[in-house]
């Protein structure tokens, strides 16, 4: 298995080196210029609806495109004390409708289950970003489908493609077969099945240096092929653009695709995506309780530009006055039909 960039001592493991890379590259227009042209500078938040929590960087997979640089060698894990701060912030913020749990593999956090149990008392929509293979990684995870069902979690899972070779290129050898097996287990308890009310959504992201095709066309292909070949059902498909940071940035640079990929993103810039950007209705919480505008800013260590930067001083009023931090990676969320954790946005 591959190592994370951090474990292999790669310079792009450090957020400041990624930001320097963007700053020194003068081939592309600045994202801030695009916002200024659209009179959206500074970019301001809208009503906070999504509370996204990164439970840690530990993962059983080492995906080639991972913006978290997650893997088995990452030990950063959210503590129970920080989870309690999350619960308090959610309780105090009625506008939050969704709690979105991500990682790494969030299930690898030893407090994952008690946290979900506590969250389910708050009557919010809970999303678990499950990488599928975790369900089969160890006996102790085999009952996760039942656990998700018990707490009415929405399961959102990456399956970068409906064909084995492309999925395994991105996520590692054998991942496709295990993912199919895990999807069957989720279907078995009702996830993705019509009338069950248990939502199972899949995430497509390109296995290479290109943009996603239109989400609807792709969804039709996924539905047809996964049902025909494997008897698998799911609800929706989210097509997500790879954001040029961390491991994906390293891939682009190493494969000499960076210039062409950034050119594609910049040329596909679509101002109609600005209203629906996820950073405008989301707060992203790091494993250590620090606050960010989105998961990508979190990985670039671009904390909220506010007096409030940590859960311990969570104050929605103050956060609402912040300007959202943007940089060159934001061209990823504004290209074409746009991209968010829920797929296309325009």
């Amino acid at each position: 298995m591959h190592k994370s960039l951090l474990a292999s001592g790669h310079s792009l493991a450090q957020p400041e080196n990624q930001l320097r890379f963007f700053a020194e590259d003068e081939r592309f227009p600045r994202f801030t210029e695009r916002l200024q042209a659209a009179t959206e500078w500074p970019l301001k938040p809208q009503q906070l609806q999504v509370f996204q929590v990164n439970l840690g960087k530990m993962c059983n997979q080492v995906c080639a495109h991972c913006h978290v640089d997650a893997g088995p060698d990452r030990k950063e894990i959210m503590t129970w004390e920080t989870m309690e701060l999350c619960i308090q912030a959610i309780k105090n913020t009625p506008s939050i409708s969704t709690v979105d749990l991500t990682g790494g593999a969030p299930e690898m956090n030893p407090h994952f289950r008690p946290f979900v149990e506590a969250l389910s008392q708050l009557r919010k929509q809970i999303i678990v970003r499950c990488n599928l293979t975790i369900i089969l990684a160890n006996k102790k995870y085999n009952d996760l489908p039942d656990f998700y069902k018990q707490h009415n979690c929405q399961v959102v899972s990456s399956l970068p493609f409906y064909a084995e070779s492309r999925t395994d290129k991105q996520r590692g050898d054998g991942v496709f077969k295990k993912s199919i097996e895990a999807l069957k287990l989720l279907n078995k308890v009702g996830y993705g099945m019509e009338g069950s009310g248990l939502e199972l959504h899949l995430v497509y992201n390109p296995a290479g240096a290109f943009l996603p095709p239109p989400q609807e066309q792709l969804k039709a292909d996924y539905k047809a092929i996964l049902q025909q070949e494997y008897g698998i059902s799911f609800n929706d498909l989210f097509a997500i653009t790879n954001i040029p940071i961390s491991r994906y940035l390293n891939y682009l640079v190493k494969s000499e695709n960076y210039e062409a990929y950034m050119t594609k993103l910049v040329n596909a810039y679509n101002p109609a995506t600005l209203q629906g950007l996820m950073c405008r209705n989301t707060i992203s919480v790091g494993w250590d309780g620090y606050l960010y505008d989105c998961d990508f800013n979190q990985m670039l260590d671009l904390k909220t530009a506010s007096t409030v930067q940590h859960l311990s001083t969570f104050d929605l009023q103050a956060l609402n006055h912040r300007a959202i931090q943007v940089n060159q990676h934001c061209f990823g969320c504004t290209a074409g039909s746009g991209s968010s954790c829920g797929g296309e946005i325009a």
Partner: protein
Amino acid sequence: MSDYYNSKDLHRFGEISTYQKEMGDKFFDWYGEVFKDSALTAKEKSLIALAVSHAVQCPYCIDAYSSTAYEKGYSETQMMEAVHVAAAIKGGAALVHGVQMMNKVEKISM
């Protein structure tokens, strides 16, 4: 003037309108219309375009439609089969002229 083909020229395709704007504009409008979802999907059209690109041996087109067909979800095997279809038609087109050769030989021989 040392390079006949430069991959960066693909991105300058639109500049052909500089010397003849009206015709260029008409071409690009028509081109855009051709590749939209219609009786054939945009995805299906990308695979046809890939095969034709090989038949006309246009490196710019091969670059463009290899990317597009792959992005739209065709597998490596499907794309290579499309190239074989183009090659088979090109090969067949040469070979079917063998009948013309046979006709001529039969006509002039005793």
